């Protein structure tokens, strides 16, 4: 590669290339500035106002933030609901995806068929997904209750029951773990085979192989997937909006669902923007925590001293 640091000046060719470089990334950069960064800053400003979209904004200072944490009766409920969901969903999705990936990593006939079959649910549009699962969860003649009855068990209320609604949505989410599975599968290909052979020689079973070879080598991938699934889980919305509308008794009143309701049903744009920014802070803090903890459990192969 050409050395650009020659006496601080660039050749004409380099300057030309640079110009074209800027030109080609301009649409993407402009897009981010105009459609993402700009509205973000605008919403930050709005979060300090009272705005119902019809009348001019009224400056409120930090009143919105104060109301959120003190007088809004549903705010803490939505936080609890969202954290509960994340706590269940992240392990469920990752464990299930890893399990599937390990199965697919073995010598099984029709591997690509299985891989496709497991992956397809994750590309079904989430609205269609929600409609489908509403049918599956149907308490009278849905798929799940029919299976339970076949085995003689009691029918459950699934998303109609306060205590079952979040686990039900987690089940639905685990069904769509295909994309996470593909990433784990790719990671599994990168485990050196001689390490497995070493375990065979030293005497160890499948369990040892998994716990002491596969997992540590995969830990960067686990790290990535945990962070992405955590960020996604904290922003869950569509399932609540389509299937339960936050019920029953606010048991599935997700944070973003409450935000949407405050913004578009109650016309409190300023409050909703404040909620959005607090969510951003939460996600950033949690991600930072996971990053910090990664020193303890994530093992990077290239750090090993030879």
């Amino acid at each position, binding site marked *: 590669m050409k050395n650009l640091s020659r006496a601080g000046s660039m050749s004409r060719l380099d300057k030309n290339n640079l110009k074209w470089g800027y030109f080609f990334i301009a649409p993407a950069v402009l897009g981010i500035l105009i459609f993402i960064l700009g509205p973000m800053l605008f919403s930050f400003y709005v979060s300090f106002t009272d705005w119902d979209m019809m009348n001019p904004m009224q400056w409120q200072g930090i009143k919105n933030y104060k109301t959120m944490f003190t007088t809004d*009766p549903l705010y803490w409920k939505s936080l609890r609901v969202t954290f509960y969901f994340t706590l269940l969903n992240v392990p469920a999705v990752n464990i299930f995806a890893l399990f599937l990936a390990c199965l697919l990593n073995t010598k099984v006939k029709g591997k690509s068929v299985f891989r496709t079959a497991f992956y397809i649910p994750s590309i079904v549009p989430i609205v269609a997904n929600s409609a489908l699962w509403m049918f599956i969860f149907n308490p009278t003649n849905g798929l799940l209750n029919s299976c339970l009855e076949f085995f003689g068990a009691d029918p459950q209320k699934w998303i109609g*029951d*306060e205590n079952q609604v979040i686990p039900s949505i987690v089940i639905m989410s685990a069904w769509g773990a295909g994309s996470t599975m593909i990433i784990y599968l790719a990671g599994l290909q990168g485990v050196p085979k001689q390490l497995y052979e070493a375990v065979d020689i030293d005497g160890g079973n499948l369990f040892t192989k998994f716990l002491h070879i596969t997992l540590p080598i995969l830990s960067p991938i686990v790290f990535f997937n945990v962070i992405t699934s955590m960020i996604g889980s904290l922003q869950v919305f569509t399932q609540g909006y389509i299937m339960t509308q936050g019920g029953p008794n606010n048991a599935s009143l997700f944070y973003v669902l409450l935000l949407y309701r405050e913004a578009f049903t*109650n016309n409190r744009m300023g409050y909703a923007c404040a909620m959005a920014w607090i969510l951003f802070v939460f996600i950033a803090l949690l991600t930072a925590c996971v990053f910090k903890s990664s020193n303890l459990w994530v093992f990077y192969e290239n750090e090993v001293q030879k």
Partner: protein
Amino acid sequence: MKKFLCILLSGAVAISLLSGCSKQDSTSGCVSKGGTTTIKFTSWAGGGEKDALQKAINNFNSTNKEHVEVKADFTDFNDYSTKIDTLVAGGTPPDIGYVDETLAFEWGSKGTLKDLDPYFQTDASLPQAMNIDNFVPGSLFKNNEGKIYGIGLGPEIILMFYNKKSFQDAGIAEPASDPKHPWTWDQMLAAAKKLTTDQNGKHPGDSGFNKNKIKTYGIQIPTGNPQMLPFVLSNDAFYFSNDGKQLTAASDGCTQVFQAMGDLMNKYSVAPSPALTKTMPAGTTMLENGQISMMVDGQYTLATFGADGFNLGDKIDVAPVPIFKTPENVLWSCSVSIFAGSKNQDAAWSFLKYLADPETNIQMYQTGTWVAPLKSWYTDPSLIQKWVGNPLHGGNYQKVVFPIVTDIAQLSPHTYIKNWNQIITQQVAPVLDQVWNGTATAKDALEKANVEKTAQPLLEGTWQ
């Protein structure tokens, strides 16, 4: 050549990026070539109501002398207020449109809706029948200062529809049809028990009755407001104090009613819970099939029955809702309002006048979508004949509906209590989910949720 192609390609990409910024083509306020003013009318009407409205609009477009053309935009009810918010915020409000009755006073006082009182006072071509005093109480959104923020074209009340054949087959007398002496709750419950059967033909209370395998339900009751208000009011109870500043939803009167409703679903299994109702076909379809025998809902349901070919007095009929103590009902109408941001307010007013005159818009009333908003249409025989003199409005319709509209119903409080949506729909109603699911009694659920305390900041009184 290659360089030229590159420039062309990146130019195309840049242009397609910018096309996302273009403003939506708005049809409000444009005057087309022939001098016609096009106005935009938004509504959430669906089914029979939408068909009737479209007919009225087509009729208006072809017969009006002010060269006004109406373009209708129908949006699903759940997305409607979001859409209006976006339009208003974007500076392109519709000229005229439906406004949810819980929002009409609020938007009016914020200046989003135009005050119609000047039109009423000064319009010389206003028909005599449209005098302010001739409107049924509750059909004009008039506040204490005399400002009128909308006309309620289709006042609605709550009724009980029932399947005549189900009653004949079970050998039970049909519900009482005198609205001043309707069935009591207990009478309704006794009938519902006989009308509910599981897949083996057993009734609730019979041994071997399987409540998970019910084939026909005795009754379907609403759990939303204002549809369940007549039940509550008939027990001399209400969610708010008279000035709207105190929440009394946990009072004994109210919890008795909630518990009775929940018992229908869980204790007696004669009614489906809301969770079940979500998964079943439309109530009207089920009533027509006999899957439910009684159904409590608004008068507007008649339009759907009519569209399905079911006339009152033939296979189905109507009765007043069952009561606890005294006959009560609520009357409300969504508002049709002119938006203050419209650039064609006079054109919108000419359309609104047209819509408000039952004479020119008779299909809406004949098809059962609306009841007449003018008092004269309940007393003058020639006018009565015009809108109920058809097979659809047969059976007990006049006997039940007329006294309710003129004597019994009160203006539904959900139109004039401030923050009704946040307090009742978003805070009290979720707590009641436990009652409909049978996981808690009404009294326990409401006491535990302490809604009276949490709703405190929202209790701001009334708009009127």
